[in-house]
């Protein structure tokens, strides 16, 4: 009798305890669903939008000592909708016809760029240890205990009230109002909405303002739960909330709300009862600590993989998308042979020159940076394979790299295996994990592949990293994860210069392998699939096999690179190197500079490690001016600018999937060609810029000459 009573009261307490975090998940899930419903964008930047409003509120209320109301108005009803309108006007209006994968890459870039822009503009620094205040006076200090079991703070009650009201309000908006109907219509087809006499642009702008305000509101409400206001925290929360939103197939507001609450309850129940069970069931103990934080990611991963309705829920395509000019082909742009060979030779000579100078003249810190650049380039080649060749977005490359790093740490530090051998073993393990993971994940396709890989990355982050035989567990937090440098015969790579040589050799080998894959059967198969999966299947290509290969190869490269990075830093440094949010920046960098080519990966590696020192601190300018004293005063530029530059760089991914550098080169080539053509006065060959024109009938009754429309090639025949 008493046992049942205790169990009952424990159950009630757990449920009540789980309600406040559940409300937070529900609130974010609602906002996420709202954005998806009204804009059709799988908006991973939602957390960034929430975080800047929270930061604005903190700045106004705590730093500037504004009263609550004006601070709330400025952060939620001015800044947030303003940001939404800007994003719509400058970014998403131009991406309507872009693929959902391109859009998700853009939102990733934005989730890195937007908080950095805010921090730069308002000179805001994520604060540690100072808990932001809520929107009710003394919100964290006054408690109400309706059941005598668990007390709720004012802040928590306010959040709950807002979440439920918002769900009802939004449901009513979509159910009963003309605006809600128009918003849903615009998502499906802006042009068809226009045909109904409705201004699609205006509706879409309103949608963004509304969903962004909602993000802001959510951010301000949940900020008191954090003791910092760092963007990664909000990003994590969005990933958790996606689990709740997915339960409603991303369109049902009530289900998102219930999903959020359920997550909160499950976590609280496990937190209450698991310790009790593990007292008798000892095998549960290792899971006890780690299971609770990983629940949302387990749920997300499980739902995506085991709930086929998600995969089948394809977006309704816009029947009028044919009105727009076709998007630039993903596989387009094989460059001609002659000029690139020339420029390749010059580029290679330049690179070798720089390499020699670095090798002979550079001091320790420069050697460190250059080595890091080379290692990062190797890791980025894994993105080249999975995104550039296979056209898939993987957000767990950091995890594969970490597997490489941790394997070297385990084998070399604990078991005395040769370091280089351990690195290769690490890469093989990463490849195996990648191959296994790819089986359920890759058949999801598009956005869902990205989300499932993200869920896997967070699963690794929240559970596996803490297990001692995998990633060192708790001891590694105190002692660090030591990774020695290799010694091979007479060569001791503890010397930084020789290690640089080693990394360069590894990079060259991997780069060569990638180019071979690209031009080989796997590469051709992948490019066929990215052209049209159906057509590829109809000629007997198995997309699954090609993709699993690509995923495994990519994981191998990432694992190898991760091992090298750990060896280079003599420590795995999981948090700063490989954590899911840190690894997002990798993708953003590679995609904005060039995900197709080895060169793009190399440039991304250089940008990652040298952009700050070389460009932002003005060192390069100093070299040009031939004195460090003459560097203009605007240097050093805040290193956060690189997040802004490269984050915003992803915006062009939708239109120029080949990347900024490659695009720039092609533009230049076109100009040179055009100039040359004008000089010689006759048409040259048809290059990839030449307009496709309808051939004109020679039997045309009219006497007009069609000089403007005859294909360029025709005139030279």
């Amino acid at each position, binding site marked *: 009798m008493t046992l049942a009573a205790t169990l009952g009261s424990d159950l009630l307490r757990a449920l009540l305890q789980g309600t406040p975090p559940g409300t937070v998940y529900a609130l974010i899930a609602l906002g996420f669903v709202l954005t998806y419903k009204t804009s059709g964008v799988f908006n991973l930047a939602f957390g960034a939008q929430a975080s800047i409003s929270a930061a604005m509120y903190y700045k106004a209320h705590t730093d500037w000592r504004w009263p609550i109301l004006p601070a709330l108005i400025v952060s939620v009803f001015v800044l947030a909708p303003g940001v939404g309108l800007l994003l719509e006007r400058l970014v998403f209006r131009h991406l309507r016809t872009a693929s959902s994968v391109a859009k998700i890459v853009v939102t990733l870039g934005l989730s890195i760029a937007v908080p950095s822009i805010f921090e730069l503009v308002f000179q805001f620094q994520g604060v540690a240890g100072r808990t932001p205040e809520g929107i009710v006076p003394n919100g964290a200090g006054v408690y109400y205990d309706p059941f005598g079991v668990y007390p709720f703070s004012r802040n928590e009650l306010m959040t709950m009230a807002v979440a439920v009201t918002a769900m009802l309000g939004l449901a009513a908006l979509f159910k009963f109002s*003309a605006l809600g*109907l128009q918003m849903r219509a615009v998502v*499906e087809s802006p042009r068809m909405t226009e*045909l109904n*006499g409705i201004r699609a642009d205006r509706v879409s702008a309103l949608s963004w303002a509304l969903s962004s305000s909602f993000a802001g509101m959510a951010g301000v409400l949940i900020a008191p739960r954090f003791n910092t206001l760092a963007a990664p925290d909000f990003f994590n929360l969005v990933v958790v909330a996606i689990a709740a939103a997915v339960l409603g197939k991303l369109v049902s507001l009530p289900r998102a709300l219930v999903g959020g609450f359920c997550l909160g309850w499950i976590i609280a129940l496990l937190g209450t009862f698991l310790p009790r069970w593990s007292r008798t069931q000892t095998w549960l103990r290792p899971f006890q600590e780690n299971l609770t934080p990983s629940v949302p990611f387990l749920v997300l991963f499980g739902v995506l993989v085991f709930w086929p309705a998600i995969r089948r829920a394809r977006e309704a395509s816009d029947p009028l998308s044919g009105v727009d*000019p076709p998007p630039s082909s993903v596989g387009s742009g094989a460059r001609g042979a002659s000029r690139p060979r020339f420029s390749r030779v010059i580029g290679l000579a330049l690179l070798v020159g720089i390499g020699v100078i670095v090798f002979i003249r550079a001091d320790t810190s420069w050697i460190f940076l250059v080595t890091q650049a080379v290692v990062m380039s190797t890791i980025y080649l894994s993105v080249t394979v999975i995104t550039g060749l296979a056209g898939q977005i993987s957000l767990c490359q950091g995890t594969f790299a970490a597997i490489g790093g941790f394997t070297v740490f385990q084998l070399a530090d604990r078991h005395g295996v040769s370091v280089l051998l351990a690195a290769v073993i690490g890469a093989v393990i990463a490849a195996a994990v990648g191959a296994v993971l790819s089986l359920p994940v890759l058949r999801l396709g598009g956005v869902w592949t990205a989300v499932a890989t993200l869920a896997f990355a967070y699963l690794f982050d929240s559970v596996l990293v803490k297990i001692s035989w995998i990633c060192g567990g708790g001891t590694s937090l105190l002692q660090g994860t030591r990774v020695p440098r290799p010694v091979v015969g007479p060569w001791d790579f503890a010397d930084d210069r020789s290690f640089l040589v080693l990394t360069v050799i590894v990079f060259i080998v991997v780069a060569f392998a990638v180019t071979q894959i690209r031009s080989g059967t796997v590469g051709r198969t992948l490019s066929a699939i990215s052209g049209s999966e159906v057509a590829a299947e109809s000629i007997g290509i198995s997309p699954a096999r090609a993709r699993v290969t690509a995923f495994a190869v990519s994981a191998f490269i990432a694992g190898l690179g991760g091992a090298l990075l750990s060896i280079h830093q003599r420590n795995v440094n999981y948090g700063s190197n490989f954590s899911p949010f840190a690894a997002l920046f990798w993708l953003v960098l590679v995609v904005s500079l060039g995900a197709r080519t080895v060169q793009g990966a190399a440039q991304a590696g250089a940008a990652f490690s040298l952009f700050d020192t070389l460009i932002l601190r003005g060192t390069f300018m100093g070299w040009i001016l031939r004195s460090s004293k003459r560097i203009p005063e605007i240097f050093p530029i805040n290193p956060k600018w690189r997040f802004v530059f490269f984050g915003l760089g992803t915006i062009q991914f939708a239109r120029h999937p080949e990347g900024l550098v490659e695009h720039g080169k092609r533009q230049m080539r076109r100009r040179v060609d055009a100039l040359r053509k004008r000089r010689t006065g006759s048409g040259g060959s048809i290059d990839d810029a030449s307009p496709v024109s*309808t051939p004109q*009938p020679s*039997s045309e009754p009219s006497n007009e000459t069609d000089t403007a429309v005859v294909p360029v090639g025709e005139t030279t025949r």
Partner: protein
Amino acid sequence: MTELLRFANVSAGYGPFRALFDVSFDIQPGEAVALLGANGVGKTTIARVATGLLAPSSGTVTFGGTDLTGAAAHRFARAGVAHAPEGRSVFATLSVEENLRLSFRRSKGRAGVDAAVGQAFELFPALGQRHRQIAGTLSGGQQRMLAMARVIVEEPRLLVADELSLGLAPIIVDEVYRNLDRLRQHGCALLIVEQHVGHAVALCDRAVVLDRGRTTWIGPADQASERLVRNLFQTESPMENSPTE
């Protein structure tokens, strides 16, 4: 200026691709005009320019005496141009009733929506029975009926209908044409893009024959078939061909 729609030297295209070259024609109020020609001659492009979906690269488009060149599609719609585009022309994610409401809310005002929806369901009882069904799950014929219901109740001044019979059973095609005829009798002008020349010729007063982005012939609809056949045979072997007119 009596004409309802007027194309004057209109050229248009998609990105670098040019699909129309100096097309000129007009439609009188209440008149039915058929656009005829083989695949890829620019019929759909003309329909898109006539409804504001595509802005012409040169030339002017006037509707009811107002210059609407380059105006957004919603301005064409507000001026009284309705468009039933090729393929699916309903919102697949909205229900049947929501599809109708979306359109009537603007054209009939808040007060007139219910009456207009009722009228649509009276005309097409089958739709009324399925008013809560998601439009994407309707059959092709039912989707066409939904699009027609919307247009008939809205009473536009001009309907631009693109390949209305595409993929439909003959019996439903007849139904569609009966409805088009009903629209005409209410004074609505029609611009019809159709590969079923027989149907189009029977309904229309005049025809515009297109070839490779240009108008090659404009005249009474009943003479169009002959002209179309001649066009086809002329372009079959352009090498031996010499201009005959």
